[in-house]
């Protein structure tokens, strides 16, 4: 059996029990790798439960900086007896099994095609701590210490991280450092080290930041000028408003009075949270809510009102596995249709599709501008994979010369000057009407907002022509939206290619890797990353420029593909779907395999490629 030897390119997975303090220890490990200049992308795989259930932390160490899930496990840190068997089975041949050897294992509970690394963690912890909680807690740090030696990582890095984390809590600091060394010393004395699989200092991290998409989106809302946030807790979105609260405490307190320049309401449910956002938007404050699938279903009626009455609304949908309660702690891109066509009747909504924390920040701020400009709901479509996992991405940037786009709001002066005000009248030819805010002018510009049909002057009307005027104006406004939303990102080849691929959101890192892989195999495919719906012209052009364009997404029903087909009037036969939807993040291996196979088939018989399913 030949042990895996790999430098800066492996997957290590920690099998733990939730609530046992492992989460922070595992993150400590990931951060240390990063501090060595080596990119790492960790993923929490956690249950819909609070304490005592299995949870995993899968960290991909990858010098080339591929952040997508790779698949396969090179080293398993097996800390959970409940899942021992399945964890053992997951290890690649030649891989490593790190476990707590305090109690002897029953015979036959190991594999002979892997390297076994026994460390008596419990024994070490018990020998050094009395308080059972501390024993438990430090056991985690001890295994991190042990791993650090096995993987050839310097103690200093960890000590520095501790120092930052426990600043002002010296008692914790010291005991953590001590625990780290307990682990390091044991390995140094009892085990061969370092392993053939190891981390080596590099410079591939650069100025990238390591954070999660939910905090990034919250920060984007702060920078974008959101003042009202109404929400209802739901996994995996709760950390958006929670982070917004944290940032507001820091940046939105009036220095002189100590009063708050924001209001955050934890509503009684999602019908109320969206209702509050609609009310605030109607009244001229930038407002947002964050939710996930079930919340989107409950918000449908209000979303229809906001579409038809034309009220700025920002909705952050951190997607999880559907339908229904589905897989609350797994990731998917399966709310595309329920958001793009939210509510009864003919509706079309704007979707933004960030790929990572950096874009979560950018798009969140952009969403607030777009909502005011377009006077309609804007959906920020992220998912659990980018929302709740920390990810390396470009640092946040903000141009101080930029100023908020508050859209078409008629002022008291304009009204006073006698400017004609037709709330639902298309005066500029872009389908976007002007609005007034309550309280603007004593006698001019007031109107009655409603979800029923009305004429361009906002008067109730049941006349067909008034209705048609309004509905077609809304279509025109949607066309305008296509020119304002974040534009697609292209990856072209030197030579035009027969095949293209379209993807979006959290699929990006896996896609990038897959394209490199295919490229290395001489399979040239041009790529377009969607960043929003409606689709700008370049999307149609891109599809037009290729015989076939794969549409890669993380849902069962090829939802984005159906929007492409219908909005751009494309023959579906030209858009083979590549679908991965089991709740785990899509991998480069999966994408590359699907495309490779489709290309082979296409070459073999010029028959049309068809849906490829996970």
């Amino acid at each position: 059996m030949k042990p895996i030897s790999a430098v800066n390119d492996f997957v290590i997975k920690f099998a733990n029990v939730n609530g046992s303090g492992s989460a922070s220890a595992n993150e400590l490990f990931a951060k240390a790798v990063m501090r060595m200049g080596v990119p790492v992308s960790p993923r929490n795989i956690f249950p819909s439960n609070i304490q005592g259930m299995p949870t995993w932390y899968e960290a991909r160490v990858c010098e080339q900086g591929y952040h997508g899930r790779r698949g396969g496990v090179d080293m398993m840190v097996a800390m959970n007896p409940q899942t021992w068997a399945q964890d053992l089975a997951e290890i690649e041949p030649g891989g490593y099994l790190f476990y707590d050897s305090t109690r002897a294992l029953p015979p036959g509970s190991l594999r002979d095609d892997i390297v076994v690394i026994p460390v008596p963690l419990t024994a070490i912890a018990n020998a050094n701590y009395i308080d059972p909680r501390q024993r438990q807690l430090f056991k985690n740090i001890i295994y991190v210490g042990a791993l650090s030696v096995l993987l050839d990582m310097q103690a200093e890095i960890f000590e520095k991280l501790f120092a930052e984390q426990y600043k002002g809590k010296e008692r914790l600091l010291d005991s953590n450092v001590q625990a780290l060394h307990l682990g390091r010393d044991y390995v140094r004395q009892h085990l061969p080290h370092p392993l053939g699989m190891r981390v080596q200092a590099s410079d591939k991290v650069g100025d990238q930041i390591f954070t999660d998409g939910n905090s990034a989106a919250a920060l984007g809302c702060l920078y974008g000028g959101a003042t009202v946030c109404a929400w209802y807790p739901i996994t995996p979105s709760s950390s958006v408003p929670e982070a917004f609260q944290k940032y507001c405490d820091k940046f939105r307190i009036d220095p002189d009075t100590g009063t708050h320049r924001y209001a955050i309401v934890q509503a009684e449910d999602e019908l109320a949270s969206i209702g509050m956002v609609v009310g605030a938007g109607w009244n001229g404050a930038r407002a947002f809510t964050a939710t996930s699938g079930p919340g989107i279903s409950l918000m449908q009626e209000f979303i229809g009102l906001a579409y038809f009455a034309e009220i700025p609304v920002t909705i952050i949908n951190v997607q999880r596995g559907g339908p229904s309660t589905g897989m609350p702690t797994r990731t998917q891109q399966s709310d595309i249709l329920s958001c793009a066509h939210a509510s009864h009747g003919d509706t079309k909504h704007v979707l933004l599709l960030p790929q990572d924390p950096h874009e979560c920040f950018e798009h969140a701020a952009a969403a607030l501008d777009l909502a005011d400009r377009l006077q309609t709901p804007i959906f920020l479509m992220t998912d659990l994979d980018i929302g709740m996992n920390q990810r390396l991405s470009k640092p946040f940037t903000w141009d101080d010369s930029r100023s908020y786009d508050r859209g078409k709001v008629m002022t008291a002066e304009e009204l006073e000057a006698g400017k004609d005000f037709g709330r639902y009248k298309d005066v500029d030819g872009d389908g976007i009407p002007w609005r007034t805010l309550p309280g603007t002018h004593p006698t001019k510009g007031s109107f009655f907002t409603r979800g029923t049909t009305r004429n361009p002057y906002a008067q109730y009307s049941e006349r067909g022509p008034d209705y048609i005027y309004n509905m077609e104006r809304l279509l025109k406004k949607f066309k305008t939206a296509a020119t304002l939303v974040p534009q697609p990102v292209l990856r072209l080849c030197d030579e035009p290619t027969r095949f293209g691929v379209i993807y979006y959101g959290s699929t990006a890192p896996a896609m990038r890797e897959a394209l490199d892989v295919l490229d290395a195999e001489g399979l040239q495919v041009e790529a377009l990353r969607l960043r929003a719906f409606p689709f700008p012209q370049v999307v149609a052009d891109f599809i037009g420029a290729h015989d076939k364009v794969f549409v890669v997404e993380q849902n069962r029903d090829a939802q984005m593909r159906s929007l492409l087909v219908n909005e751009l009037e494309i023959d579906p036969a030209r858009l083979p779907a590549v679908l991965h939807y089991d709740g785990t993040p899509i991998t480069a291996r999966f994408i590359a395999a699907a495309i490779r196979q489709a290309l082979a088939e296409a070459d073999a018989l010029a028959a049309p490629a068809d849906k490829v399913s996970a």
Partner: protein
Amino acid sequence: MTFITKPKLHHPTLQKNTVGYTRRDYEGRISTLCAGCGHDSISAAIIQACWELDIEPHRVAKLSGIGCSSKTPDYFLGASHGFNTVHGRMPSVLTGANLANRSLLYLGVSGDGDSASIGLGQFANAMRRGVRMAYIVENNGVYGLTKGQFSATADRGSKSKKGVVNSDSPVDLVGLALQLGATFVGRSFSGDKAQLVPLIKGAMAHGGAAFIDVISPCVTFNNHGGSTKSYDYIRQHNEAVSRIDFITPGKEITTDYEAGSVIDVPQHDGTVLRLRKLHADYDPTDRYAVLAYMNQAAKHGEIVTGLLYLDPLATDLHTAFNTCATPLNALAEAQLCPGAAALARINATLR
């Protein structure tokens, strides 16, 4: 030719209030409600109250749900922005609007179906949160706009125009508002302008969540069973053609009685409503005392009207949130955006 005249709101005097508006300036579009609908009387009372309060019309934001009652904001305060939201969910919209701009006055108008059936949860939460608003429910015990089904405030055992009997225990919005923490709670009758106008003024001026339950008879769907002979012919006709085909134009039911007294008010359907007006010296500062008092009166078939509960020191959600004096919708970009330098520092903490 066929022509049923629309109810006219009280003819405005042309006298100006201290902010320089005549009563007409507080009117809205002509009502499209049924002739004699109690809701129109309430609109008239709102107009009167705002005029007397010297409120500038455009400083009021009027919000409603869906229903005949919820249509009424179109019929008063034409110079105010109005929002006819969705059925039963006005309270959340009003809450959001209020948070966005604390400098306006908020008037929520709803129906018993809108607030006690579909809207019960949102009604309760707006009261719990102490959202500053005057929340008026125009309570007729039925769904007017959808043609006379029961609402949650209909009494157990009552019979709808279509003959269905209600078996659910009624929701008493006043009782709920009291329990849930509303700091101004009143009840009145649409036709009792003398009582209603001051109540509305008090609610508009209140510093927290103010609720008024206004009994407001529905002409059209409450004129069945036990009604006076003269109606029979029409009722028989409607039965024969099995639809509410002919609607007898009704008259506004008005009443006026002394504080501390009880009065029987005949309704469109011939039944009588027994109202007891609180004594002028009644002390409305104990939530639970008033609950007990109301339940006592209920035993004698009496409905207590007046200002039932008041916390004069009430504060609102903004106080709880400690929001700044400047309306949130008026904060300048500089007050909202920490800027590039701060962002660089944030980036630094994420490496």
